[in-house]
């Protein structure tokens, strides 16, 4: 028996005494159930924001980029700020699923699905901005290496903007297949659990017919590992290339060799902040507190601390080198004395306070484990990281080398509307996802249940590490509704001792009433039948029926609506089962054989 040992001082990653079945049902609950009121309210708000943004986009495209607040000095502003902000947010998902998989971090399993979803939705928002900025989005295919109609004027592979096209599309598509491959077993779980025919059909299509053969799992694990290996450098490359958009230019403040690592750290920083923002709400709304625990939040806060620390050091270095270079232009870059005291002082200080000062509070363990404080800090970081990109772009451009061209940037109604629209679009996608997708990689969580589940940890603490960790010990409803293969002939019963006993004493009145209707069994003159021949009665159900006093087909065949209800009350585990399968009708056919 393979060992499931984990150091006892490690806190459990799955709280509560969970069985594998509990995980399926709790992860599937939002999909099986109906949307509540707060979901509809948030969805409506997000949809309105999205539609507003869509209107702004349509107005921009039909009128021109002049509807934005750009001027001759500041030719890039909100659009690229938002682009970089969204791409940065899109870094946490693949980092969690790829890098943490390579490092064998078990806590990733509860958060990777949603973080990846967030990644994909964020990159979709990011991709919108360059396409809108093209002015003629229907010509977006010009960024592809296709010959033009006049000969063969190609795209310029020396340009970091073209690198971006390749990097972002590779990142988006690889993240998507990584996400989807991981989703297949979970879609299959929903396909097999749901009782609605429509859902069964849809999830059947989405699950690609996943059956869970041992060979499939072997390939699945290999594919996940290789994709993680490929995606890890990919995550690092994407924001490196985004930073090249700035670093390969000769604009003071942009022309900086520190940019690639600094941007990557900043991206992970902002990505984790967004994951925290979303998951803290999601775990509450979808009742997943047992899976996304305070420990997960603390781990993510530690990543935020690390990457935030890198970002903070990078700020200080930028500030120092700008001053130390003695170049007068550097006195107006986004991290300089000039910026701190100039017309954009508020943007400078927003950056410093949000990204450097406030996250420092996470060094305190108590605050790091406080959900409210984490949520607050995550929001502050989201704002701070938006300001970082705004500062890099707008402050650096606003005071160029020629004092005569110094200018300020005023966003228009359209700039703001488009940005809010992408936030709305993002939440529309995320809310739809939270209702229809298994938001936790349940198959993966099941693999760590025995090592890191609270119930199994308690068991090991009580019985030592050599205990046989049999899931049956947690099984609350053994032998649940047996799916019976039409070709199958049951030929063996389950172990009797595992069956929980019917509470005969408290149910005595109901049992008497039931037996009065169907008749009692007299072992002296009657022989008992094999009740398991009835479709819907498994070994466990048979045990329970025996405990009540039902042993023959004759008794079962006398059951009517009223007796079915009584039976459901006595044996609460299988509500409606007997009626659905028409036990009485089946029993009658067996009597007449």
């Amino acid at each position, binding site marked *: 028996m*393979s060992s499931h040992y984990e150091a006892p001082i490690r806190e459990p990653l799955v709280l509560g005494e969970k*069985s*594998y079945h509990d995980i*399926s049902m709790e992860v599937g609950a939002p999909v099986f159930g109906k949307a509540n009121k707060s979901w509809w309210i948030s969805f409506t708000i997000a949809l309105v924001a999205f539609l507003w943004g869509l209107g702004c986009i349509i107005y921009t495209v039909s009128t021109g980029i002049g509807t934005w607040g750009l001027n001759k000095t500041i030719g890039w502003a909100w659009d690229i700020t938002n682009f970089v902000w969204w791409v940065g947010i899109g870094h946490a998902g693949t980092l969690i699923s790829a890098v943490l998989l390579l490092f064998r971090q078990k806590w990733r399993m509860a958060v990777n699905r949603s973080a990846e979803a967030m990644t994909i939705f964020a990159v979709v928002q990011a991709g919108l901005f360059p396409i809108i900025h093209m002015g003629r989005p229907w010509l977006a295919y010009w960024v592809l290496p296709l010959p033009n109609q006049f000969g*063969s004027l*190609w795209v310029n*592979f*020396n*340009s970091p903007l073209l*690198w971006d096209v*390749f990097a972002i599309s*590779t990142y988006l598509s*690889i993240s998507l*297949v990584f996400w989807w*491959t991981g989703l*297949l*077993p979970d879609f*299959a779980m929903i396909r*097999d*659990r749901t009782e609605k025919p429509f859902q069964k059909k849809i999830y059947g299509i989405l699950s*690609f*017919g*996943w*059956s*869970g*053969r*041992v060979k499939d*799992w*072997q*390939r*699945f694990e*290999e*594919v996940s590992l*290789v*994709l993680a290996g*490929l*995606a890890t450098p*990919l995550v690092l*490359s994407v924001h490196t*290339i985004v930073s090249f958009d700035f670093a390969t230019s000769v604009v003071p403040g942009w022309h900086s060799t520190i940019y690639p690592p600094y941007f990557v750290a900043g991206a992970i920083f902002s990505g984790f902040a967004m994951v925290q923002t979303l998951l803290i709400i999601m775990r509450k709304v979808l009742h997943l507190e047992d899976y996304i625990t305070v420990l997960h939040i603390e781990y993510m806060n530690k990543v935020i601390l690390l990457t935030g620390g890198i970002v903070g050091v990078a700020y200080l270095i930028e500030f120092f080198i700008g001053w130390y270079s003695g170049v007068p232009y550097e006195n107006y870059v986004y991290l300089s004395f000039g910026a701190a005291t100039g017309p954009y002082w508020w943007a400078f200080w927003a950056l410093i306070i949000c990204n450097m000062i406030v996250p420092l509070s996470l060094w305190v363990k108590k605050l790091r484990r406080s959900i409210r404080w984490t949520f607050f800090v995550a929001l502050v970081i989201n704002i701070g990281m938006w300001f970082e990109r705004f500062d890099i772009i707008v402050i650096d451009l606003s005071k160029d080398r020629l004092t005569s061209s110094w200018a300020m940037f005023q966003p228009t109604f359209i700039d703001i509307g488009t940005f809010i629209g992408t936030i709305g679009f993002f939440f529309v996608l995320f809310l739809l996802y939270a209702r229809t997708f298994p938001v936790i990689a349940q*198959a993966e969580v099941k693999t760590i249940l*025995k090592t890191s589940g609270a119930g199994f940890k308690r068991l090991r603490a009580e019985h030592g590490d050599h205990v046989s*960790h*049999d*899931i*049956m010990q947690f*099984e609350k409803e*053994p*032998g649940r509704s047996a*799916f019976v*293969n039409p*070709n*199958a*002939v*049951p*030929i*063996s019963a389950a*172990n009797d001792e595992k069956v929980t006993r019917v509470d005969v004493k408290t149910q005595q009145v109901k049992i008497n009433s039931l037996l009065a209707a169907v008749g009692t069994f007299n072992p002296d003159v009657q022989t008992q039948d094999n009740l398991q021949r009835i479709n819907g009665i*498994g*070994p466990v159900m048979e045990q329970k029926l025996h405990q009540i006093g039902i042993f023959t087909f004759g008794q079962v065949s006398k059951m009517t609506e009223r007796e079915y209800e009584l039976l459901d009350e006595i044996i609460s585990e299988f509500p409606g089962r007997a009626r659905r399968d028409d036990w009485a009708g089946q029993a009658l056919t067996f009597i007449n054989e």
Partner: protein
Amino acid sequence: MAANTIHAIYTDDDVLMNAVKQTRAENYRISEIYTPFPVHGLDEAVGLAPTRLAITAFLYGLVGFTVAVAMMNYIMIQDWPQNIGGKPSFTFYQNMPAFIPIMFELTVFFAGHLMVITFYMRSRLWPFKKAENPDLRTTDDHFLMEVDAENHDVEKLTQFLYKTGASEINLIQIEQDH
């Protein structure tokens, strides 16, 4: 003529693991196992050969790299060389530093996507494919081992499987028409 298999259902991965080892030691043939999650080491216990998908990924990566080099060499050096910001475009080698990001991206793009497509094709996964797990509970918390019962005493085999800890044992008879 009926082809017989026995479906032994387990409710625990460790019990299943032991059962697989015992079943193989008794020289019974396990034709398939369905599990709700990857059971570590099960593929080895069943005696499956290691998957070669990682090797295909490497080869696909080489293809992607080659495509990137050939494409950029043709576009930037052969077909229409241009002086862009004074960056040398006389030979591929001189211009190469600017091409490294795209070489990397296309390597990853080809390796990742083609490997996943290969996985889907080999494991027969695609939209509208019908699921083939014989028991719906195998995607939840049950583990199903399919044992070949042909030429075996079914009664004996059943007794044996029962002792390995199976919670349900079903005989599957597939009637084959002439």
